[in-house]
């Protein structure tokens, strides 16, 4: 099997969790399948690397929602390329009480957060964002564990992050 065949095989076998859209080895990933996790809290991240980074800190007791990217017209990424609609659907149907936005401290992260904020608009949930202990311009996955868990714990209502 050469490399391109291998890649093809990989692509064919890769599946995404039906709930959180993280790469998974089954229909549902092990986090979503874990009933001990808080079903009312959802942490929104860009991709699987952020899930791993946050899991390393063990600060988030709930489940995740993986967007699959950030809104960035320069990179050809629009809202329809992300799982935002799926997020709205989950929030409406799964009895979610808190949505925590854990996106990169970049312009693209801010834009995506704002877009989600508008989409979730009037739903009766607590929308929070992780605190900006992270240096501006840094991706979540590069933050060290201490910084990341601290900014997670010190999360703030999303509204207060607008027009910093």
């Amino acid at each position, binding site marked *: 099997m050469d490399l391109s065949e291998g890649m093809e095989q990989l692509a064919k076998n890769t599946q995404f969790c039906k709930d959180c859209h993280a790469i998974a080895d089954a229909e549902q990933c092990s986090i979503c399948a874990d009933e001990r996790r808080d079903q009312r809290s959802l942490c929104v991240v860009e991709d699987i690397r952020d899930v791993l980074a946050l899991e390393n800190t063990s600060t988030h007791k709930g489940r995740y929602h993986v967007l699959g990217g950030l*809104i*960035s*017209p*320069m990179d*050809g990424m*629009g*809202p329809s390329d992300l799982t935002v609609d799926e997020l709205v659907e989950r929030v409406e149907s799964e009895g979610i009480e808190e949505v925590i936005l854990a996106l990169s401290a*970049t*312009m*693209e992260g*801010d*834009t995506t957060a*704002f*877009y989600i904020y*508008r989409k979730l608009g009037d739903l009766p949930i607590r929308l929070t964002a992780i605190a900006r202990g992270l*240096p*501006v*311009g840094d991706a979540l996955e590069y933050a060290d564990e201490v910084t990341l868990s601290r900014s997670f714990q010190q999360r703030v209502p999303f509204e207060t992050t607008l*027009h910093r």
Partner: protein
Amino acid sequence: MQDVILQDLRLVHFKNHSQADFQFSPKLNALVGSNGAGKTTVLDAVHVLCMTRSYFHSTDSHCIQFEAPFFVAEGRMRVGETETPVYCGLKRAEKKVFKADDAEYPRLADHLGRFPVVMISPSDRDLITEGSEARRKFMDGVIAQSDKAFLDALIQYNRALSQRNALLKYFAANRTFDASMLELYDSQLCQWAPVIHSARKAFIESFEPRLKHYYHWMAGDREEVGIAFKSGLLEHSMEHLLQDKLAKDRVLQYTSVGPHREDLIFTLHGEPLQRVGSQGQQKSYVVALKLAVFDALKEALGIKPILLLDDIFDKLDAQRVEGLIRLVNEHHFGQIFITDTHPERTALMVKEVNEEAKVLDLSPKQ
């Protein structure tokens, strides 16, 4: 007031210097030698240590000597009693390593303003002849050295602008339009535009008297120069401008209004300098502009920047050079580096300077 002083400099594979070591005078350093001896290169290396990048090349790797694998430029900066080793190294195809006190910065921009520098070079004429981007860069470079909030706003603004332009292109290519998507970026542009605009406006207002002062010093006081700010934001808010030009922007597929379209207008007797100014007047204007920058930085940062004078005799006649030396002797300037192709002329100048002066001959050893 304290001076920024580069005490020494070591270069490895930096442009045409394979390996070189220099010890500098805290006052006047004259670099002499024939064309191609690498005098200007030394000035540029000083600029790199102060500003993290070359004055002449926008691509860092252009500073690596031909066919060499890397460059290193390092030296010790002194301000008052505090000595700071500064290091810049670049391997081909790798990320530049820039350190002060043996530590890298979280962000390279954090170095700006610590060791301010002003370069006066023949290429400054570009400020007059080139497009508005050169003039915005010039003014932003000065403001950013003493105003970090300005630099942050500029970075954020440019990022949002690129995204907005990409979105406009996407709309055109797909024959679609989504006002709420555009709003995502408009709101960010509107957040940062006033920060950038007002910082530039304040800068120009305080800058003009300094410019006039140095121009009079250069060319006598019968000639009246000025510097004006051209900006749509002087009359309208960013919100208004974006709204007003939306149809146009959609056709153009880029954003046609905002701080990224602002410009400086250099004037002589109220007319555009480029049109009415002689070669000599234009030269005097850019030197005055740079000396005014020196004063602006000195005041904003509370330290005297290093002054780099590349081929200054091309611009100044004997009388002006005398005036310059007078300013040196009156402690108006701090450390100065000057290049010259005529050793005799340099020797004469050095004799006039009261303070410790050093002549560094870069001619190839016989």
